[in-house]
């Protein structure tokens, strides 16, 4: 048995599983759609449009595509306009813009200008055809008492900064790593708030770790402290700048080993 099968067997033996029969899973999918229509429809009179948008929003996920409710709305509205025969130049143009935008978003991780980040890179064996190799996989920033959306936004900002400075292959979100998208190193950032003894003021310590994916060794470990939460985005921008220019230095030597990261197959 591989590790996944063993863990599942343990979960079953210790009665920690809550298995759902197939018919219940199908019922769940139906209730998920109905529930969302009912909740969003409470604030709106346009329940037909909401139903169509929600249906499309959930339906397209079956194809491995996740788009926002905003894009779903735009697509559905355009489709209705076309179906109603009220095609106008604006309508066709809008549809083309939306379709091109979605297509470009899906393709954005595949744009491949030459990487020139100017810092030493320890490469794993040359990636086989069809595999996109990036310098850094950026994990979602960790911070207590911060919303997931805020942390995701900060993480995406770091990725955007790294790409702006060093090219499209400089960074990718850790969530997008798979067999065909690999990275040489992993960037982890955690932010901790510490209060002074009087409790009147607080500092934010931003800890940065870069781990080599080939052997899970920590190659860079640094930290910076800011005086308030509003200064965090600027500090992250500075960190991205230092990573891009190769000037982010380890403040203390550590040789501990992370668990193996199977970023390559």
């Amino acid at each position: 048995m591989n590790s996944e099968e063993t863990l599942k067997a343990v979960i079953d033996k210790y009665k920690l599983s809550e298995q759902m029969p197939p018919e219940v899973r199908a019922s769940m999918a139906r209730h998920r759609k109905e529930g969302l229509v009912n909740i969003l429809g409470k604030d709106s009179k346009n329940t037909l449009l909401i139903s169509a948008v929600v249906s499309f929003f959930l339906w397209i996920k079956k194809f491995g595509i996740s788009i926002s409710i905003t894009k779903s709305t735009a697509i559905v509205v355009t489709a209705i306009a076309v179906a109603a025969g009220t095609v106008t130049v604006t309508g066709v143009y809008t549809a083309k813009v939306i379709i091109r935008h979605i297509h470009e978003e899906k393709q954005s991780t595949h744009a491949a200008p030459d990487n020139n980040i100017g810092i030493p890179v320890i490469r794993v064996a040359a990636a086989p055809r069809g595999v996109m190799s990036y310098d850094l996989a950026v994990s979602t920033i960790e911070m207590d008492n911060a919303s997931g959306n805020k942390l995701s936004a900060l993480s995406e900002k770091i990725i955007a900064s790294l790409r702006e400075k060093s090219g499209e292959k400089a960074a990718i979100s850790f969530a997008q790593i798979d067999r065909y998208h690999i990275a040489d190193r992993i960037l982890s950032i955690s932010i901790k708030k510490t209060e002074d003894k009087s409790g009147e003021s607080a500092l934010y310590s931003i800890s940065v770790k870069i781990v080599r994916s080939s052997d899970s060794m920590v190659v860079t470990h640094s930290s910076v402290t800011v005086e308030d939460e509003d200064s965090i985005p600027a500090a992250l921008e500075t960190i991205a700048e230092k990573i891009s220019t190769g000037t982010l230095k380890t403040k203390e030597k550590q040789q501990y080993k992370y668990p193996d990261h199977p970023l390559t197959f």
Partner: protein
Amino acid sequence: MNIISDKVKKFTEIYSNFYPVIFNGIYSRIKNEDISGELAQEVFTRFYEKIDSVEQPRKWLWGALRYVLLEYYKKNNDNSIDIEEILFDANIQYTNGFRDTRIILQEAFDATENYNDETERVIYEMIAIQNYTYEEVAGLLGMTKRQVNYRYRTVVERIIDYLRKRGIKNLEELL
């Protein structure tokens, strides 16, 4: 209502990701699909009203799930079981010597360090606990099967390493 307001955008993302685990959490106790759907909708309706003040959606949703279930049990005058114990400590049911190991396993599954984000936690719960296939999870969350497979495997390895550090050197020993 502006259907593409920030509130709606935020809500629909959280709803589409967490609905399966919340529904299944209710169904595992109620064993009725339609009532589970109604109660799940109640949980998310309350969440929609409070979303601007919620910092940790997952914790909030599970807390709301417990209260909605409690209200359901009380409304149906189910006095045959100690409702609050069932809702707040599932481990209390097991007195056959499994309890300590269950607690350690549950701690491993709950530990934040084993997940990069809430999506990984949802993927893990749906596959390992609720027995969804990779294809089903991919279709529900808008990911490819490959992505789900990879992220699930990395979570499993972190959990196994977590257990190893706590004295469970080999999972096969537990079998």
